[in-house]
């Protein structure tokens, strides 16, 4: 694995805070067209069972080549490590002129792991303008424990981000991020290829950690999401715990958020001893 292709610590900190990373033009146009052809003609079959090593799933197909591109492999490695396990995939089709309605949800309410996590990718094989309704994400929602579609009532959240991108763009996201498909107002069918992967190793320092002490890391971890409101401090504390997990550093903190509440000294000063 070329270290220079892995995520940086600043990028990992961004993932820890926002819950997803976006990479534009990762996949060459020709490969996008080939992968899109597989999706739209129904030729994309699963070649290995759920739980198989991901490397065995699409040995010959264009979609397999997409995920074996060196940079794509390096990003996946940074998040879930080497030899990830295939969970499931879906070539999500939103036909032309389709209204989706309110659809905000979280995929994995059953996943109550405290810190370990799966990733999902959203690969857009064609140009995806605003009106074609690419996936909408709510930044900083991945620590929220809600029950799948219970949040459908929420139509808009300040700071929401819709995938408006060129062909070849991939979003890599924490499976607990809130997201929503959108209406496709265009005359073209729209595909988004979703793939879920599981780690098979401890998710600790799997990225390029050369910049671990960079101020950009702290800056990214400290960023405020406009919709967190009064819950911002608890969100920061959850981020710190997540960063401790990712880095394997149980002492990491931002501005004493945990250092303060973990401070329960038991040493009795000599002058305070009973009977002293």
């Amino acid at each position, binding site marked *: 694995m070329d270290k220079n292709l892995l995520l940086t610590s600043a990028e990992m900190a961004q993932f820890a805070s926002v819950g997803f990373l976006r990479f534009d033009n990762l996949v060459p146009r020709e490969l996008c067209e080939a992968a899109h052809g597989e999706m739209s003609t129904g030729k994309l079959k699963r070649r290995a069972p759920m739980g198989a090593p991901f490397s065995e799933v699409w040995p010959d197909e264009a979609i397999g080549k997409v995920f074996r591109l060196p940079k794509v492999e390096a990003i996946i490695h940074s998040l879930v490590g080497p030899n990830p396990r295939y969970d499931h995939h879906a070539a999500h089709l939103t036909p032309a002129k389709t209204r989706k309605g309110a659809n905000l949800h979280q995929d994995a309410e059953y996943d109550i792991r405290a810190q370990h996590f799966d990733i999902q990718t959203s690969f857009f094989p064609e140009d995806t303008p605003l009106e074609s309704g690419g996936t909408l994400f709510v930044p900083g929602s991945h620590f929220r424990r809600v029950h799948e579609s219970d949040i459908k009532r929420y139509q808009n959240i300040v700071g929401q981000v819709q995938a408006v991108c060129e062909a070849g763009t991939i979003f890599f996201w924490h499976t607990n991020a809130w997201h929503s498909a959108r209406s496709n107002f265009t005359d073209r069918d729209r595909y988004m290829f979703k793939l879920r992967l599981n780690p098979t190793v401890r998710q600790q320092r799997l990225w390029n950690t050369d910049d671990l002490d960079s101020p950009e890391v702290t800056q990214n971890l400290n960023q405020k999401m406009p919709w967190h*409101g009064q819950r911002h401090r608890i969100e920061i504390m959850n981020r710190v715990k997540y960063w401790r997990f990712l880095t394997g550093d149980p002492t990491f903190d931002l501005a004493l958020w945990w250092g303060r509440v973990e401070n329960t000294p038991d040493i009795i000063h000599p002058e305070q001893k009973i009977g002293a």
Partner: protein
Amino acid sequence: MPETQQRQQLLFLYLGNSSLESEVIGWSLYDGTTDETFEAAGEDNEPPYKSVLHAMRDGWRVIQAPFLKAPQVGREYENDYLDFEFVLEKLETVNG
């Protein structure tokens, strides 16, 4: 004379804290006055009002305010749903 009826519009405003003057951080509109298909989430980037108070000044009536409650013991560091959900309504007279 055509028969008329009153129909309801519901506006959900989610605030940053419990004050009706605090900033809107999310919103939804459910409009019973029209038969048009309900549109997908996330079309708008700016909330319709800055706060519940601003909406009230535009004729919206608050029909539900959130309860304030302490987190359950052991769940002090868990966040989940949007806490400060205010439900507002407008009634509109339409031809039946």
